């Protein structure tokens, strides 16, 4: 396969995954800000949303303060923000168009259809109802992309490179929300917990579509260390770091087997997975959740760089 084709497939999947994540961040933030202040405290949730989306710097280069209007504009529709939902879909479609011969018609039509539909939403929502519909629509695109890829694509390097993009992006997203909210997930004895936090925890879970999953896995009311466990170490949870790395190892290995050659990407993926498998939540809290997440983010970036230099250039 052409390296550029692999690159396009990888980024196509990354951008679709990122669009879905941004939609979830925005939806969870809307819910939080709709609660009375007494339930959620006085922190500015819109500012947190910008941080969770990973674009605090570029946002505050343009705005002095974060509010519903400018954050939704910036994260969802802005042309100036290279990672706004609109731009994610635009870039995903550009990548898809460059490799449309590598995509099945179902996958291509999902992306192309999304890009055509995007115009329907114009320059932004006219009401909260419409905005919420938009956010649900974005999540649906991602589901359709994923579903059509899963159901229609040949299991060869085309599929594997697209999965690598998806899981590296997903791991990055989950890590980022943990990074922004880690101080709410500290264990009970260190944490001045209160009813305030309950809604914050629920919002975290909602952002990674794990609120229901939490109850099924732990059969308990929301506990911060369990939430951390679910998002970091639980292999059943599709957005956990552990699950992402299980998949990354698998797809890196598929590529290596097909090409008959191992490399840095395979070693890096395995090293990260081994570290996750050997970790226990207590130890992570002892050495510091924040440090653990920071290290993970840079490891994950290193995998991205390894994949890139090994295959995509």
């Amino acid at each position, binding site marked *: 396969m052409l390296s*550029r084709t692999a690159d396009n497939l990888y980024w196509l999947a990354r951008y679709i995954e990122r669009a879905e994540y941004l939609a979830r961040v925005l939806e969870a933030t809307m819910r939080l800000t709709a609660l009375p202040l007494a339930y959620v405290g006085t922190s500015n949730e819109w500012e947190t949303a910008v941080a969770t989306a990973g674009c605090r710097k570029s946002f505050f280069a343009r705005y002095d303060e974060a509010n519903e209007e400018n954050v939704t504009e910036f994260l969802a529709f802005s042309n100036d923000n290279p990672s706004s939902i609109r731009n994610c879909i635009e870039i995903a479609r550009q990548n898809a168009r460059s490799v449309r*011969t590598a995509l099945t018609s179902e996958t291509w039509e999902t992306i192309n259809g999304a890009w055509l539909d995007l115009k329907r939403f114009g320059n932004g929502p006219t009401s909260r109802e419409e905005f919420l519909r938009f956010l649900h629509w974005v999540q649906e695109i991602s589901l359709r992309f994923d579903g059509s890829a899963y159901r229609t694509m040949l299991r060869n390097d085309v599929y594997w490179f697209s999965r690598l993009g998806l899981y590296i992006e997903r791991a990055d997203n989950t890590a980022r929300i943990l990074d922004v909210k880690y101080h709410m997930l500290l264990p009970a004895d260190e944490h001045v917990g209160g009813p305030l936090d309950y809604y914050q925890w629920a919002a975290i879970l909602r952002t990674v579509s794990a609120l229901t999953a939490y109850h099924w896995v732990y059969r308990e009311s929301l506990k911060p260390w369990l939430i951390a466990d679910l998002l970091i170490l639980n292999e059943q949870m599709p957005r956990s770091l552990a699950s992402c790395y299980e998949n990354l190892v698998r797809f890196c290995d598929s590529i290596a087997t097909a090409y008959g050659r191992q490399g840095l990407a395979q070693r890096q993926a395995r090293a990260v997975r081994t570290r996750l498998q050997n970790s226990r939540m207590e130890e992570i809290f002892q050495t510091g959740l924040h440090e653990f997440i920071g290290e993970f983010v840079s490891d994950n970036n290193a995998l991205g760089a390894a994949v890139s230099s090994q295959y*995509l250039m």
Partner: protein
Amino acid sequence: MAVAFDEMRETDGQVRPVYAGLDKWLSDLPPDVLDHRRREAEFLFRRIGITFAVYGEADSTERLIPFDVLPRIISSAEWNTLRAGLEQRVKAINLYIKDVYGRREVLRAGIVPEDLVFQNPVFRPEMNGLHVPHDIYVHIAGIDIVRVDADTFYVLEDNARTPSGVSYMLENREIMMRLFPELFSRHRVAPVENYPDELLATLKSVAPKTASSDPNVVLLTPGIYNSAYYEHSFLADKLGVELVEGRDVVVKGQVAYMRTTEGLKRIDVIYRRVDDDFLDPLAFRPDSALGIPGLMSVYQAGNLTLANAVGTGIADDKAVYSYMPEIVKFYLGQEPILKNVPTWRCREPEHLSYVLDHLEDLVVKEVHGSGGYGMLIGPKSDQATIAAFRAKLKSDPKNFIAQPTLALSTCPTCVEEGVAPRHVDLRPFVLTGRDKIRIVPGGLTRVALKRGSLVVNSSQGGGTKDTWVLDV
């Protein structure tokens, strides 16, 4: 201007035999069905993303070419004549290009004036004395044909560089079969779906001697912003070859390679949809970001086939066009089966004075123009436009040719007022390989959707139709 020949109906209203089935089907059709299908077709085209770009239009970087759901029908007897004429013409074109970059007998014999070749910006001195694999220059030709009466087909233009439109020929048929299964069950239409196989066989047959028995063929595109990008990706997909951009190819030691996820892989044949100018910044335009530095050195070393070859433009500009009948006779010793449209060469003083006296009746075209731009349609222009054009023509007569305004044939077409005749042309695609010439029956029919309009170019409001070759 004469009354146009209608391909479906005689002047007395009689339906020609080849259209009888379509006519019957149309009269059986409940109202609104056509309109409904037309909208369905448009939806399909947009979903699949069969679009093209119009340069210079800010807002609409991707547009649909309007598709007309009524097929254009040619009888197999007519087609057989066309096919023989196309083969003959493309054979002569290949011999002519080989000669121009080789022994130049055609110039010495005074058949074609020298300055027309040497002062032509598309003449490539790099090709002088170069042996291209198997002496084939134009592997893929698109010959534009117009019809003026029951017996006369003219060649309007030869496209010997990077002719496009074949994806529409294929997609139009697919969409028609999807929308009108009932119509197809009443006809036996010669298939066109084998075109990609024929093209791949052609490309493999012309691989250089250095290639393995299974040569690596790729399609080179300028990229997603090119107006014909859809076609490039479509063809690469159907051929099962890699769609490469310039940046995917590297030249090392006079061999071209593509960068793959498993390292460098040698390339033997490039079906290139990038113009000569942009092909290699070291040989041609140094500012080309689309090209592959050093590609010409690979070509000159005989390690690569370019389809089409570099420098084929000297066979298809409008000034050379007027010499094509003589070129056919010179190389093949045969009378041309397909006629040229009568053409005045403004470079010749007698012709020029005739043209200047009859501007109101003529179509005047720039020798290097394409896409219907930069031309004067005398009968449709006001005095001011004609006067302005007269000045342009006088200042540089060599740059123009003139032809009578042809009454292009018409076909029934779905338009706002219902089904009405509209002018059409035809672009069949001729594939020349080492072993033989291949032509799939039919081609791309372009239709001028505006009433009375003769401009079929997609960039100026033309549409397309499925083209059927039928046994009567």
